[in-house]
């Protein structure tokens, strides 16, 4: 096992990793930007180093400073969290050659999954159903059009290098595609430094369903029941739950088995998530795989009663994974992402938290780096807290979440709690009848457009 872990991240995920490291008996080193001096992750680690000014490019993405901290503190492992350098294969390589274990899969796996087009091809080889589409980078709009006509509209353009919605464009017909192609190229170039695009059939009424996997260096591969992440706005997940009200036991087993086979095919050795679109007929298509811990991992932990980040660290240290009891999910878990943002305009709302009461008690888990008196820096993402509710049934978990959100008191900044409460009270949501189009349609109705 390692002796000291550098956490190359901030916010709730940094705190979450610090906790798991401490539970494993490891020392922790936090890094922070000048605007994160009073952030909780910097206060609660064993050691801490300022690594640059507020701008992430100069601090949390500052590779020389990160590695200097590892060297100075004699940290023997680095946890990248999510975002920032978490899926940067080159960084993982630099860590390994500098003698610092990168807590994630080998750089080759990060590189494979980072190239969305290559990932699709490799996964198709592993017999994972993929969405019909261009099997390679599109040369130009003309080639895109030809492919689209073959597989049928609507199609979606995607950046080969990217994720998170950047460079994505849904095209309804040929003219639309020709118009959007250069725009998407430009967006991809600006966001990822690479204009390469590919396209896929766009599936309407689809569900975003993902399967958590964890592997070790001894060939163990474990998969977990699905997470339903269809409540999205602009490809940003807002509410996640497990199990999915849409997935039945047959589909669940099929997807878990398919992911297990695919992970085994590439010899996967860490925490990871395989994301799928599932259509109305319960056919599932591989979208992409994330080679890191995900924001929504806690709901899986709640229903299984396990700790995925500890498993991730142990696997990186070469331990063989084992859990004290059979991995069977029990009950239902929901996560609401509480963002510091205007619930109507979605504009970020940084500022000082004047007064804070987070929820607690039976069945409630809170992952947050917020505290009363904290000045939220405006430089980073707006995720303020993840509130997770666990109960024996979906109905009870939703009631519990409603109660928790109603009793959460945050003064000084705006949050999207009103939006969450509105969604949780929606009859379609309550009946579990929602797909990836749900939230945008809900918001359009709400705004009367």
């Amino acid at each position: 096992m390692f002796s000291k872990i550098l956490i190359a991240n901030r916010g709730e995920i940094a705190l979450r990793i610090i906790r798991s490291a401490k539970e494993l008996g490891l020392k922790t080193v936090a890094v922070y930007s000048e605007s994160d001096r009073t952030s909780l992750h910097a206060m609660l680690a064993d050691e801490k180093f300022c690594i640059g000014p507020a701008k992430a490019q100069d601090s949390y993405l500052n590779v020389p400073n990160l590695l200097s901290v590892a060297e100075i503190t004699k940290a023997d492992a680095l946890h990248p969290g999510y975002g920032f350098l978490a899926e940067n294969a080159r960084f993982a390589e630099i860590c390994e050659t500098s003698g610092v274990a990168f807590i994630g899969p080998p750089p080759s796996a990060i590189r494979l999954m980072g190239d969305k087009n290559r990932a699709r091809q490799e996964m198709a080889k592993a017999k994972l159903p993929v969405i019909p589409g261009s099997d390679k980078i599109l040369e130009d709009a003309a080639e895109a059009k030809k492919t689209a006509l073959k597989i049928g509209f609507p199609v979606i353009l995607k950046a080969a290098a990217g994720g998170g919605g950047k460079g994505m464009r849904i095209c309804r017909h040929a003219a639309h595609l020709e118009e959007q192609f250069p725009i998407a190229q430009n967006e991809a170039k600006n966001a990822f430094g690479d204009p390469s695009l590919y396209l896929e059939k766009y599936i309407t009424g689809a569900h975003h369903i993902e399967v958590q996997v964890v592997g070790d260096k001894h060939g163990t591969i474990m998969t977990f029941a699905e997470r339903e992440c269809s409540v999205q706005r602009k490809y940003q997940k807002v509410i996640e739950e497990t199990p999915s009200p849409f997935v039945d036991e047959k589909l669940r087993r099929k997807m878990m088995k398919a992911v297990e086979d695919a992970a085994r095919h590439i010899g996967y050795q860490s925490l990871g998530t395989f994301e799928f679109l599932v259509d109305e007929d319960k056919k599932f298509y591989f979208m992409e795989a994330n080679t890191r811990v995900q924001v929504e991992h806690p709901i899986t932990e709640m229903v299984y009663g396990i700790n995925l980040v500890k498993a991730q660290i142990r696997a990186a240290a070469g331990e063989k994974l084992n859990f004290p009891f059979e991995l069977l999910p029990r009950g239902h878990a929901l996560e609401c992402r509480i963002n510091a943002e205007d619930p109507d305009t979605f504009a970020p709302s940084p500022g000082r938290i004047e007064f804070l009461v987070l929820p607690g008690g039976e069945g409630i888990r809170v992952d947050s780096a917020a505290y009363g008196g904290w000045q939220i820096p405006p430089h980073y993402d707006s995720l303020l807290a993840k509130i997770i509710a666990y109960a024996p049934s979906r109905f009870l978990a939703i009631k519990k979440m409603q109660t928790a959100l109603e009793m959460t008191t945050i003064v000084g900044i705006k949050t999207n709690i009103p939006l969450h409460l509105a969604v949780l009270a929606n009859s379609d949501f309550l009946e579990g009848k929602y797909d990836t189009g749900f939230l945008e349609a809900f918001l359009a109705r709400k705004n009367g457009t």
Partner: protein
Amino acid sequence: MTPKIDYEEINKIIRLLEDRNLAEFELEIEDFKIKIRKNPPVIAVPPAASATPGLGGDFETGGDFHMIASPMVGTFYRAPSPASPPFVEVGDIVKKKQVLCIVEAMKLMNEIESDADGVVRDIFVENGKPVEYGQRLFAISPSA
């Protein structure tokens, strides 16, 4: 003669309090006395934070010192090699662009230069110790 204290003057003093992060100001000259106290910050920062040594935040220690801060994380060296004499000592006159120290990062020796002419008034870090980004290394005063 009585001192001329008017609104503008008081305003200036208050601004000084803020800039220098002072809590209280008291002045008594002959018959003149002024006292200004700032509100304490409301939320106490937990001990963990305040106990940190060498936090680069509080640059102002009074006076007109110019601070040289570390532009990177690394190990601070006062001399080019263990056998050499230090680049500078307290009291030395330094010129702009003159090398003051080395910060070693990723096996590279980065020479840190002064960005002002003046006299070295203080050296805050011991030879061989790690430094954070933004950690103050030297205090320079404009002239002798």
